[in-house]
């Protein structure tokens, strides 16, 4: 390090400042459920290898926005999305983009743990199996083990991989779901209030996990709890009544937000 010239250091720092690469870009995103409009022209970008938290009172549209990122809204009858959402610069609503492929790249973890009524092993192997990611049994075993390790579940379940995933505790189930999502090796993981059904200890465990996963994945998390957003995220976006109020570094949002509404929400004046 010492041999680097001052100029080189300067340049490197500069590069770091400008080297904000955006994994996903949302431009003027609006969502309609039938005649009802749920999102109003949201412009929000997701940085690579960053945890972005979406906060706001219930019904503010944060989950709706999250679900547009891997087109889970497609499964809802009468749902319509306008605007542009891009993953690595490609519009994901473009007809040439395949939704299956998209979801293999943008995985999702849901509010309530939803392990399949299969064995733990099969739960994790499900994604790689349907996408044909493992050619041999050994490869599959490796994927399962690595995913469970990344989800911090390996030590707890390695001796009972053939037992049903629904037999685990709530917190373990949610980590299993995370392992299941990780097993597909997605680039982005969307988490929709992943801890709302968990007790505080399980929540702490999952938060720790999110922290670790950041190294390899881009994470967008919807959360109801401002403390959680403050703990796990680097960037925070505040939604209110279907609109994006502001988006900034988490520290800034929680200490000195630009918008009065964010201030009020964080102070607990509404929500």
């Amino acid at each position, binding site marked *: 390090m010492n041999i680097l010239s001052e100029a080189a250091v300067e340049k490197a720092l500069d590069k770091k400042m400008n080297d904000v690469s955006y994994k996903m870009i949302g431009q003027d995103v609006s969502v309609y459920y039938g005649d009802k409009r749920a999102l109003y022209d949201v412009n929000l970008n997701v940085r690579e290898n960053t945890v972005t938290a979406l906060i706001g009172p219930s019904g503010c549209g944060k989950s709706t926005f999250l679900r547009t990122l891997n087109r889970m809204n497609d499964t809802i009858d009468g749902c319509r999305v306008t605007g542009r959402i891009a993953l690595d610069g490609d519009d994901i609503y473009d007809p040439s983009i395949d939704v299956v492929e998209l979801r293999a790249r943008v*995985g999702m973890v849901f509010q309530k743990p939803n392990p*399949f009524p299969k064995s733990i092993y099969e739960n994790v192997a499900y*994604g790689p199996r*349907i996408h044909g990611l493992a050619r041999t049994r050994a490869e599959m075993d490796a994927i399962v083990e690595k995913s469970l390790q990344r989800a911090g579940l390996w030590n707890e379940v390695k001796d009972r991989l053939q037992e049903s995933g629904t037999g685990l505790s709530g917190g373990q189930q949610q980590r299993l779901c995370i392992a299941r999502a990780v097993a597909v090796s997605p680039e982005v993981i969307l988490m929709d209030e992943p801890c709302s059904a968990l007790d505080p200890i399980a929540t702490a465990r999952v938060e720790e996990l999110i922290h670790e996963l950041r190294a390899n994945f881009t994470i967008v998390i919807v959360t109801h709890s401002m403390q959680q957003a403050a703990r796990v995220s680097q960037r925070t976006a505040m939604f209110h009544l279907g609109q994006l109020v502001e988006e900034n570094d988490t520290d800034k949002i929680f200490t000195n937000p630009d918008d009065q509404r964010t201030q009020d929400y964080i102070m607990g004046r509404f929500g």
Partner: protein
Amino acid sequence: MSISLLLLLVAAIGVTGYVGGNRRAQALAGGRLSSLHSRPGYYGSLVAIWALLPAIAVLLVWIVASPVYIGSTIRSGFPEAVQAEPQATQNLNYNMVGAIARGLKLLTPEERATISADAAAARALLSSKGVPLAADPAPYMVEAAQNLDRMTTTSRMIVTVLVLAAALAGAVVAYRSVAPRLRARNRVEGVMLAGLVGASSIAILTTIGIVASMLTEAVHFFSMVPAWEFFFGTVWDPRFAAAGATDSSGQFGLIPLLAGTLYIGFVAMLVAVPVGLFAAIYMAEYASSHFRSVAKPLIEVLAGIPTIVYGFFALASVGPFLRDISAQLNGLATGSYASFIQAQSVLTAGFVMGIMLIPYVSSLSDDIITAVPRALRDGSLGLGATRSETIKRVVLPAALPGIVGALLMTASRAIGETMIVVLAAGVAARMQLNPFEPMTTVTVKIVNQLTGDLEFTSPQTLVAFALGITLFFITLCLNIYALYIVRKYREQYE
């Protein structure tokens, strides 16, 4: 006094009781209705209930008990020689006595005297009054008939008095008990509750009735034909004997019937299960709500069509069609235009039954599939699975127990189905494996054995009850097991 007149009188007492009770309550209240525990109508109802219930109870006891009592008294008065005869003959005798007694009522006193003097004249005389007799009555019968007539008249008089007395007494007692603090409403509601309990126990009574009635007759049958010959016999040949003959030399083997039942049911399930399941999957997972709202009721129309219509469809359209098409195929292949599918065959019956069962499979499975939580589907779709992968790998395995239950229920319907097989399966009880040949089923044989003249003493008739109870137990077991599975399944996702 006729029963209907008696009932009318009792009803009149009841109405009077209601009015009386109502008035008395109002009078006791003296204009301040709030001093009464219940509204006056309840007092009236209470009096009416007390008038009606005991009277009707007495009447019911009489209706059941008096024929039994009178019958046994009259029979014990028969000459000893007659009493030594077999039960069936005795019944015939008693029936003739009853007929004579009915005729006696139509006769003038002089004519009665002639009959008492000369039993042989009775037949002609009575038939001129519109009461035909099967044979010339024996002298003891005329005497017995006169006894019967006398006893019936007396018992009628007694019951009239008893019923009226019970109604009046009940009404008076209840009327006198009317007081402001009497909890009339609670009592009336107590009687209503008892009525509700009674109504719900009809379900149990029906089951008991089914089991008891069939078991009695079946036991009767097994006293003539050994049970193992029935359950393990491989030949069905009941040999309809001439009426009255007690020769039970026929063979009653259940196996060929059971084989036919299961074979036809199997063919039906072969049609209904894939079609019904795929239809259910499409309805539950793919169809737009608009498509669903049109197609689902249309498919369910198939379940609303009476089975006799399917039977006729099989008999008049499908059977001949299969026969002709097989003749054409055979002709193309071998040059001989002989049909190898018979119009009445396992295939015809099974196929049409399968169509009938499609809506059962589809709507039961549709319910089960829709009950799989959305979260599981989202979980799979969120990982990038296609819809069909989600269905095949997540939804169906999760719904499997429920679907198995639904299929078992459908199978029990296939086994118990009657009209399609009666018209389309044939009557030949054979054991063979060719689906193009006719076979017969348990239900067909129940119908065959019980249509026409019946005699409740011959094994040819009674075997139907043995078949019936077999059918009942098979379907009962299937259903109980299926309900158990489905209930477990639902609890899992609630």
